[in-house]
């Protein structure tokens, strides 16, 4: 079995993995990082989105071996380090999803937030239309997306005001 050396949420892991092991199963089943969810088996729903070297990626569509040498951030590392910390330490997107009611059941939320991080890194001041298209790879069945759009807008404003769009994640942008 191949070896991988990967940094996830700031922690370095060295592991033997089956070549066919999906990254999302490596995260969930091997490392117990169950914050990242699986919602489909066709790369449509985006529930499993993480950041690989700072860029959004569907972790059900990557093999664990492809993550060798990369730096990965999952929803569980977004607020910095392992664990989530208190609400005041959350990432502006986490705060905004809560404030704007951008989630109901919450299953799509980790992927939706990670995709939004990616979106705001590329476009710190998106229009409503740009947000909707920017998140088209992430399905939500509960919210009708309206409050997700509001949350992303609110977080974008917050990040711009802080003068550090996207720079908060994994040292990448």
């Amino acid at each position, binding site marked *: 079995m191949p070896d991988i050396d990967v940094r996830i949420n700031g922690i370095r892991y060295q592991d033997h993995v089956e070549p*066919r092991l999906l990254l999302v*199963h490596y995260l969930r089943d091997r490392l117990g990082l169950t914050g990242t969810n699986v919602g489909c088996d*066709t790369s449509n729903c985006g529930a499993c989105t993480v950041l690989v070297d700072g860029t959004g990626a569907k972790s059900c569509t990557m093999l664990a071996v492809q993550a060798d040498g990369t730096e990965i951030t999952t929803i569980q590392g977004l607020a910095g380090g392992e664990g989530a910390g208190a609400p005041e330490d959350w990432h502006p997107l986490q705060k905004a999803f809560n404030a704007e009611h951008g*989630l*109901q059941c*919450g299953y799509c939320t980790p992927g939706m937030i990670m995709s939004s991080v990616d979106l705001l890194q590329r476009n710190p001041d998106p229009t409503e239309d740009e947000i909707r298209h920017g998140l088209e*790879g992430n*399905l939500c069945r509960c*919210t009708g997306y309206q409050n997700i759009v509001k949350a992303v807008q609110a977080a974008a404003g917050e990040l711009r005001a802080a003068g550090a769009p996207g720079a908060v994640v994994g040292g990448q942008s």
Partner: protein
Amino acid sequence: MSKIDPEEIVEEIEESGQLGHPDHHVPLVGQAPRRKEDARLVTGQTNWTDNIQIPGLLHAAVLRSPMAHARITSIDVSAAREQPGVIAAFTGADLQHHWAGGLPCAWPVTPDMKQPVHLPLAVDTVRYVGDAVAVVVARDRYAAADALESIDVEYEPLPAVIDLEEALTDATLVHEDQGTNRAFDWPFEAGEVDATFDAAEVVVKRRYFQQRLIPAAMEPRAVVVAPIAAADEYTVYSATQIPHILRVMLALVTGIPEQKLRVVAPDVGGGFGSKLNVYAEEAMALILAKVLGRPIKWTESRSEGFQATIHGRGQIQDVEIAATRDGRVTGLKVQLLADMGAYLQLVTPGVPILGAFMFPGIYKFDAYRFGCTGVFTTMTPTDAYRGAGRPEATFAIERIMDDLATELGMDPIELRRRNWIEHHEFPFDTICGLTYDSGNYEAATDRALELFDYDGLRREQAERRERGDRVQLGLGTSTFTEMCGLAPSRVLGSLSYGAGGWEAASIRMLPTGKVEVVTGSTPHGQGHETAWSQIAADALGVPFEDVEVLHGDTAVAPKGMDTYGSRSLTVGGIAVVKAAEKVIEKARRVAAHLLEADERDLDFAQGTFSVRGSPEASKTIQEVSLAVFAAHDLPDGMEPSIDADSVFDPENFSFPHGTHLCAVEVDTETGFTRIHRYVCVDDVGNVVNPQIVEGQVHGGLAQGIAQALYEEAVYDPEGNLTSGTFVDYLVPGAPDLPAFVTDRTVSPSTTNPLGVKGVGEAGTIASTPAVINAVIDALKPLGVTDMRMPASPERVWRAIQEANASGGSAGQAATGTTTLTAQAGPEASA
């Protein structure tokens, strides 16, 4: 070891300021405090069923039939048993003796309903693509999936039964032992129906189609069973809406005594009715854990879920409406064919029967005939999907009101005004025997028209038509009501449903003054933890943060009827109110004792008992909690507890309503439809949390619009589900939906003390006809008069071409319907 002095602890707690003080409680009902649920959900610390790890956990994988209908002539799992990491493999025959009963249908709608036995694993015949035929248990999910490849099954194909009308010829029987594909006939009639239609000046007759839909909650189903096999005790974790019902039913299916089963619904990622069921895999996992003595996990893949989780809708609706020339509706006839699929699941037959009561909608007339035939087919079983019978009914009545308006040359809103129940007529007894509690259709409609700028859009429509624009504008209306708060137990009994409609709540007052609210209503995205905290905090006068809501575990919340049918707040929320009232009454007795006052002289406000006339003599309810815990000084004979249980059984349903207006732009060259403006004004009575209510409306709209424009479970003639992934089954993404304009009017329900009505399904029920009415309105000048759903670009384009080809009057044929224009009255319509 230091000595523990209880008095010291009591003093410490008292001095800590945790026990509340007067005048600090700001009412929370009607506010939108941030959701308590979100902390774990936005940080990834959620406990989904698939997250559960237990030492020794094994993984199950299910082999499914690739054929819609076939006899299993041979099946061999021996090679699978030899695969690395495989612990066991079973066929249907291997497990057959473990079933004490088949998977349940709790709603025998008629005494003679055909109820075929539904074993979790098929034994000799498969009846839909996805029917389970074998199960493998292995050390991990990859090994289990691999081993499925080694199972050898031979099938003798039988004809698929896909078409509802063809099914009723019984040429091919889905269940040979039943002798017919007709599951039941359920009739209802009120008033002089034949006479009304004979005398009608205008009759419009239509056939509408409700396509099959796939609920597609974002969390796939999953189940984990942790056994103590030696003691025959099991904990079942399931991604379910109904842990309490599941517990009873699993006891019946497996024969394991109910008291030996604990069912837990951990965090559940959406349901929409799809997790309101008792599934083969839940029963299988339980029996596998029993047989193997090891914990078992099964998690559905999405592709598997498309086939093996219930579908929704699936009806052919023949609808006739009678009216006078000046637009007064006099009667309605509805005949349904309802697609049951291959088996009757938990409430499959009851779904169209719930709908029976809603076809009259918000309108007054005196003659109504309804009939429904349930039909077996070789497709995935259907069951409740968001709205469950009510979206179908609302679609039919709101579509035919528009068709009647067209027939009469009348504005569709004016036609509705002439027929709806006016606000001063509530409570109103309907032709179906329901009593609508309250409403104001005039107010909701007026507000919606204003927000929508109906007149302005009509002008724009006329201009575009005059210019012959490629992109035409269409306006659609839906003025709906629905029945929520399922349900008065005696009504359910009269409809032959197998259980009651009550809900339970308990309130536990903790020594430190904190409060636990235990609810039998199990949430999966609705925000019970927040809303119930608001209700309990207000009722008891304690801080929102001091309330913890417990749910979803039969060991923690032993009594419940669970979450479906927009019932949580109107039934479960009221149970919380009633439990709080009991707590206060018990606490009053203690407070009176401590204050040396008469109970009758105590006021309770802001969480504080005070002696009338001397307000400085007071005790907060949180102080009383501590006093009761210590139990040093209680009234004579009083047991040391002010905790309380309540079970609330509603006297009536509640009837939310609203007016939804949709404007679509239809590209007449490509058939592409885009929602231009969507306005809805819903009246869901009083509101506990406006942000949650708005979220429910948004999500409901998304699903209703999806039925109108995007989603359809498509089967080919051989019975293969050809829309079996998110690639083919178009759950809308963010760019596919507009920003909605929402508003509310408030007609408090008169059937419960909070005046609340329920909101979970409203958007879905209302929006589908609004969108389709708008699409047809856009294409009316081109001769299109009907539109099958979903109104995909191809369907719309074809409808336009057909209408063109037949000189602008053949929209029906174009969309495959067989609608007849009414000619029934003595003054046949032109």
